């Protein structure tokens, strides 16, 4: 796909503006984002491993991948609830959000440990 120079300039400008806007986010949100990226990365590694080695036993593969995806999703939910710019969750104290996050993770990992086999 040949990119014309204006598109390339646009892409670069976009990249810069994204970078600057993202660096304005508070640190705790950046930590959560890092955790999400880490979890997705681990899931991808597991998928690649499965593609190389084979999918037996399938339940272990499923539980591994779904635990990574699950914690990523739950971390995104936590980020939504803790983000101060989100008007819908203004009244929710961040400790409450974190407690919900921990509870949900507990249930998720209980199921994972059962399914791991």
């Amino acid at each position, binding site marked *: 796909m040949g990119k014309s120079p204006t598109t390339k300039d646009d892409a670069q400008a976009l990249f810069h503006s994204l970078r600057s806007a993202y660096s304005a*986010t508070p640190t705790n949100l950046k930590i959560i984002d890092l955790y999400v990226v880490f979890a997705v990365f681990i899931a991808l590694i597991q998928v690649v491993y499965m593609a190389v080695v084979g999918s037996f036993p399938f339940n272990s593969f499923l539980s591994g991948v779904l635990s990574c995806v699950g914690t990523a999703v739950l971390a995104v939910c936590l980020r939504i*609830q803790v983000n101060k710019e989100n008007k819908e969750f203004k*009244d929710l104290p961040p400790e409450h959000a974190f407690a919900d996050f921990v509870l*949900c993770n507990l249930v998720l990992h209980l199921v994972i440990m059962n399914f791991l086999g």
Partner: protein
Amino acid sequence: MAVPVDNLTKPTPASSTLRFAFGNVLAFFILLLIGVLAFSIRLFSVIKYESVIHEFDPYFNYRVTQFLTKNGIYDFWNWFDDRTWYPLGRVIGGTVYPGLTLTAGTIWKVLQSLNIPLSVETVCVFTAPVFSAFAAWATYLLTKEVKGTGAGLTAAVLLAMVPSYISRSVAGSYDNEAVAIFALIFTFYLYIKTLNTGSLFYATLNSIAYFYMVCSWGGYTFIINLIPMHVLLCIVTGRYSSRLYIAYAPLVVLGTLLAALVPVVGFNAVMTSEHFASFLVFIVIHVVALAYYIKGILSPKMFKVAATLVVSVGVVVCCAVVAVLVAVVASSPTKGWSGRSLSLLDPTYASKYIPIIASVSEHQPPTWPSYFMDLNVLAFLVPAGIIACFAPLSDASSFVILYLVMSVYFSGVMVRLMLVLAPAACIMSGIALSEAFDVFTRSIKFYISNLSEFLQTDAGDTLPGNNVSPQNEVLKNEKKEDTLKERPSRKNKKKEKENIEKPYVKSKTEKRPLVLPVEASFFALFLTVLLGGFYVVHSVWAAAEAYSAPSIVLTSHSHDGLHVFDDFREAYAWLSHNTEVDDKVASWWDYGYQTTAMANRTVIVDNNTWNNTHIATVGTAMSSPEKAGWEIFNSLDVKYVLVVFGGLVGYPSDDINKFLWMVRIGGGVFPHIKEPDYLRDGQYRIDSQATPTMLNSLMYKLSYFRFVETDGGKGYDRVRRTEIGKKYFKLTHFEEVFTTHHWMVRIYKLKPQKNRIRGKTKKSKSKTSPTTPRSGTVKKNPWH
């Protein structure tokens, strides 16, 4: 919703909280009464007959529950049942939906530990009414989330009595739907609650409730397809919010994992097409969430640039992924769907490809009268409810509308799925009735408050204020509710409301109140109550007369009183007392569960119908002549054959009426059985005009053996209303061992092979018969 309105005319905090408290206590007691009503309306069968398990499927569940209570949960999970589908057996632990049996087993265990000695049968019989009370409470909670307390109470009372739900949850109907409908409504309630509050705690509870639903019923696929559809609808109509993400994404991950935990579902949770919708929408919601996030942090110009870039790249990637997915799905012949789901999507599929699914009477499409019989008044309250949901449209009300539309479609495919329509119809009708009551009572209250204003003519300046304030409450009740919702945690609520009231007072003085004339509203109120009365009368009648038959005991009223036909239990008791424990009994698959549960004998096929070839074998045996049938049964080690015959008493669900299905299913696997051979000019007959194949078939012979002795030589069949074709014949390979009192169940024993064969021709034939394999592959037809 009638209760909080009055707060605005009496702004003192004490009396308003008192009214709130009074309203809540009243709601609590109403709910308690609704629970008692739901429980007691389902007890007609226990009163009319006895506390017995009904029908066929509940007997299997009862047997499994007995095993669970006797042997514990580990043996239950690992149970391999060798008393059924002989010689194949059945892996019970892996093929049964454990929710119902585990629930009843837990209840029994808890009661035992409290030293309340209820038998397992009693617990099983009464599980369904108890859970229908829970389902009514769950409907209250769900409708409260959608519209408010008044609508919730109305919907709950409607669900407690709706005949469609009663039909599958009477006392004694110990089937999956008894707990599954409660799980369905409760899961939907938690989903709506999560959507409304955005709390991750409720999302977790939602997943756990979904897990309970997966454990209970195969209809869980309805949930896992409806919720993604609703999410997609919200995204497409521009109602995406972060609460939607919190409601949906954890449910998919946790829900898939929990569904995979149940042995029946296992890896189907990720590999069958029934679940693909949820994964697709999972990806879509992530894309949408990302788009909204980037939109939030970028300036609009930059966002446009980003959008064009993403679209150009993304379209290519999307096409590649979709192509791969389509290739994977298209490679399987059923496109990844199971037979049952396909028969729901394409109503003609089952009759073309899977005759067993088509033959079940519950899988036929419903007739129009059955909608009115099962839903009664709700059938025309539902459209009013749909309109009420649109004013105003929220996430929750759009969900209920979608649920209703989908369930109406599926109920049109299979009459059994009217059960899924019932909660949706009750919710809609509850909303409609509650809104109607609101308008009428509002008009009456306005009229009464106007009357009281005209009577007190003292303070002139209070008059306009008082005249206007009822107008306010009359006009914008919903707006007050909205403002109340938007400020849920304000401490000084009263002050805010009075601040709002003042600008409303100024702007709304000229508007006329939306009230009806008082006479019309009184009359309309009376008519609505009458409508409710009709509904109640019909529901009680349906519960008492139509849906309380246990179908294992039949009754009929005649001039000399009540006749009770207890032939089935008579036959099973005979079997359990007069045969060896290891004897195998062959019958059509309808009676398999009852035979194993009550007679405690091994059967060849039963209601699980998981092996079409095995059923076709039994069908072929019943359709073949006596000798061929004997050979098939002998190869299966069968000792006794059980046949249900209704010709003497006029019982229409007997085996001769089901015989054509045996021919069709048998013919589907063994091609030498051809259905036209059994029909004369396309008509199914058993009289003298019947075809010789029909008159020679084993089913005919076993049903009508010695039948002429009952009415002195005529042999008049009361169900088919003709005289039978072949009247006097002898059975050469079977001997009759038992016929019940009303000739409804007939049991025959296979005669052992003769030791000595007389004659040379017979000797050569007997040499060929043990060496030929089962008659399915016999090339010549020795009976023509």
